[in-house]
């Protein structure tokens, strides 16, 4: 579906712009300017307000980024369980730093706060799917699934 159709399918939902943004992002991995402008028109709000919504929430990105979004939890329980090591391993494995995307457009690396899977820390998510108890040794195997 093209982004206009996706946004249009939420037009009847009061306050549905956030749902629409989620739906577009699951296809494009970020929210391009035209998407924000289109959503503003469909939900009948100024473009500035639609941009305000897109930029407020940490799961939305207004900049292009890699297709598979890797998020590393840095909240206190994951922090003491060794999240920093996981960060290093991911950066090494992908050859990029936190906040960047790989040149082939396959991966984006981001920090997140707690994702509510704290029974087995540290935790990362890839496209929302949680991986528990991760460490430097398990990272390559996890990434292989997305390559």
């Amino acid at each position, binding site marked *: 579906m093209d982004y206009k159709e996706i946004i249009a399918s939420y037009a009847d939902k009061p*306050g*549905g712009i956030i749902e629409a943004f989620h739906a577009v992002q699951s296809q494009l991995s970020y929210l391009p300017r035209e998407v924000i402008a289109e959503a503003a028109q469909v939900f009948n709000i100024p473009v500035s307000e639609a941009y305000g919504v897109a930029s407020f929430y*940490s*799961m939305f990105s207004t900049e292009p980024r890699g297709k598979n979004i890797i998020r590393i939890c840095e*909240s206190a*329980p994951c922090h*003491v369980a060794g999240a920093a090591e996981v960060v290093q391993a991911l950066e090494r494995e992908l050859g990029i730093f936190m906040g960047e995307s790989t040149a082939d457009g396959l991966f984006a690396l981001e920090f997140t*706060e707690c994702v509510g899977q*704290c029974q087995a820390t540290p935790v990362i998510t890839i496209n929302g799917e949680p991986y528990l108890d991760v460490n430097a040794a398990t990272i390559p195997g996890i990434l292989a699934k997305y390559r």
Partner: protein
Amino acid sequence: MAEEMRIVLRNYGKIDPLKIEDYIAQGGYKALEKARSMSQSDLIAEVKKSNLRGRGGAGFNCGQKWSFAYGAESDIKYVVCNADEGEPGTYKDRLIMENDPQALLEGMAICAYAIGAKQGYIYCRGEYPQVIKILNQAIEQAVTKGVLADFAIEVRSGAGAYVCGEETALIESIEGSRGEPRFKPPYPPSQGLWGKPTIVNNVETFANLPAIVENGADWYASIGVPSYPGTKIFTLTGDVNNCTFFEVPTNTTIRELIYKFGGGIPAGKKFKAVQIGGTSGAFIPESQLDTPVAFDNMSTIGATLGSGAVFVVDETRDIVDVAARIAGFFEHESCGKCAPCREGTARIAEIMENINDGFGEMSDLALLKKLGRVMSVSCLCGLGQAAPAPVITTIEHFMADYQAKIL
């Protein structure tokens, strides 16, 4: 000594969460039937009498909150479930929704009948896409069975903003706006979602209701500490042997949580501190571990029950580093609407980072305390008001650790 007691998680592991038939076979939806046979005001009086208090952190009497929305004049009213669960170290609402989604729907339907609402929303955090699927399936089954009658429930997804757990920010987010808290009053029971009377309750609060209606207020009020009766789900993280969850009566002590249920500290190390209620909670030293976990007992020691997260740190941990990380959390999650929080969280994070990196001065500690006092009284919502607590309480109880980094 307290034993585990499952009221909210009574069906955990016993039913297929995706089969409404299983839930009904366990007696599910009988409570809703009973509630609908009562008058609205009798039902609210019963909930009030049970003394069920909100499980989302503020501990407000549930029935009393409902009575405000019941009394509000309006054709349209809403029931909203707060499933934003953003407090680090917390996953109890996820457990309920994944394992017994119908209990939540039944609780919401009881509330809807009590206040006269036809539309409900579950605002579920964006980090739980699998839970959103479960909820949607559960709703579909409940609609097919006809158990909800004319009460409709829609799931809305958050998008990664801790502040959206604050009820008015949550309402803004459902309305499709930036999740910034509103000025209060008016409170949601008089003017909430789209300006209509709205009840916002936590997942765990709603999930308690079927059992309360079924077994009666007196039964519930007699469990745990009378001022905050019932059970509470705790999720244990950090340096504790059993990093898992427990549902226990509210007269359980912090020590029991850590040593009895949590199995103590791993590798024979010593306890240093515990932070309860999530990342905005106070750090609690050994000397206060015999406090019962109930809401007011925790307030007495300057701590909070909050979400029921229990984060344990052992003697080998650098508590200044942990507090600095937490300060970074609040800087990131401050929504920026009010200046004391926007600026305050940034300054606390800056000073804490300095101290943690070895560039701090003793005068910084006085500055942090003053800033903390100002924020606790001047910030618009609970985020900024509570943000200084972890820093202030670690300075209070673990001064030597700060001194070691400063000198």
